[in-house]
């Protein structure tokens, strides 16, 4: 378990930080879907380079980005290891009874490039705005209000509860019941989780009363209203244009250069 920080890099300055949250969210989302729908490895490589370029433009520290990439790496790992051996096609080499095929390798490559491109794009999209701005953007985009409220509260309390469970686990450990994978160890862990749930449940009731008594009516208030200016439109339009261009390029290259 590692420690998270809220809005760690939301206060830097870059073209992405000044980008209107709504326009940024929607345009980058379009780019993500566009990349996932591509199948040509040449165009996908261009997409990946573009994603890297956007991360650089957003000035989010690369070390932070790299650290977070390990998760997506973990998720695609199984596919990347298994596919080159399970897809049939031209054999490149073989290990025992397993053959490593060109087609399988290509498919694994396509999958990983897509997965990494999408994850990279999350950084310029979301790490460049404060959480409240994200919530307000969802609200302005007419995401159902109940959902927005749940997202807000859940996210906010993750940090509080993470501290709480870490304290509980430390106290369990200091009494000699470390995290052990035995029935007893798991039962102890279950009790700790149960305690966390009881506290959270009661806290939920109290928070709601406190919020209502301070005038909460389900909407998020921020000090600055969003205002889309011509620069925001230009940025959003260029991102969407690139998303469309990738597909145009894929289509043209499939005609003139042939599919791989």
């Amino acid at each position: 378990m590692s420690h998270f920080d809220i809005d760690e890099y939301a206060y830097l300055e870059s073209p992405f930080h000044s980008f209107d949250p709504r326009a940024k969210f929607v345009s980058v989302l379009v780019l993500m879907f566009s990349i996932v729908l591509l199948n040509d490895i040449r165009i996908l490589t261009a997409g990946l380079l573009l994603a890297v370029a956007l991360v650089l433009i957003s000035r989010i520290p690369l070390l932070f980005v790299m650290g977070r990439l390990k998760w997506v790496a973990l998720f695609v790992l199984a596919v990347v290891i298994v596919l080159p051996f399970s897809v049939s096609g031209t054999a490149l080499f073989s290990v025992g009874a397993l053959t490593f095929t060109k087609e399988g390798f290509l498919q694994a490559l396509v999958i990983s490039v897509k997965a990494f491109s999408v994850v990279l794009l999350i950084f310029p999209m979301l790490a460049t705005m404060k959480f409240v701005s994200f919530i307000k953007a969802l609200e302005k985009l007419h995401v159902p209000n109940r959902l927005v409220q749940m997202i807000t509260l859940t996210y906010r309390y993750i940090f509080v509860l993470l501290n709480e469970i870490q304290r509980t686990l430390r106290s369990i450990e200091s009494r000699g019941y470390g995290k052990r994978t035995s029935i007893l160890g798991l039962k102890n862990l279950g009790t700790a989780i149960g305690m966390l749930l009881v506290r959270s449940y009661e806290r939920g009731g109290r928070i709601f009363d406190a919020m209502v008594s301070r005038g909460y009516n389900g909407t998020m208030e921020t000090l600055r209203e969003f205002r889309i200016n011509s620069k925001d439109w230009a940025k959003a339009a260029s991102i969407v244009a690139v998303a469309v261009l990738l597909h145009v390029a894929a289509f043209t290259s499939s005609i003139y250069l042939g599919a791989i």
Partner: protein
Amino acid sequence: MHIADGILAPEVWIAGFVITGIILAYTLYRTKAEEIPKISLVTSAVFVASLIHIPLGPTSVHLILAGLAGVLLAEKAYPSVFIALLLQAFLFQHGGITTIGINTVIIGVPALVSYGIFVVGVNHTRFEQRLVIFGGLAGGVAIVLAVVLTSIALLFGGEEFLGVVALLAVAHVPVIVIEAVIVGSVVGFLNKVKPEMLAGVRE
């Protein structure tokens, strides 16, 4: 259990968005305003608990706790799972944005089913330890179902994914047992300390 972007055929993730959209709309419509903080806090707690790594031989596994979400939140477990995955995908940068719909189906539907098993089991039997036993069953069944649904989603992409599916299934066998024990123990604890938190239990 979290399918990354780019693995699935578009038909599968589009279907995921449709199914999730329908179930979400229905469950949110049935949610009362005053329930929102409690659902959120329980979602938060389940999310945090799922970050705990449990050492297992040379590696470690982390919990999914879909069954626990079901037992605590009944049909509201579905929006709860959706929100947890949304936060994981966007704000903790795990990715899985185009697959968020299908991933919610993969974890959320087992949560609903395990809630069903728990409620029917607990209300129709009369033995001492029934809450712990059916809690554990709910916890274990949720993972089995999630593995089955993930496999189905992957196999739509072609039979070359059989190897991946096999790897996934084998890797989750210990998780099934661990989750069953933990969810059983959480339910047993809550039954003693705060029984009103367990959804749908009639005395």
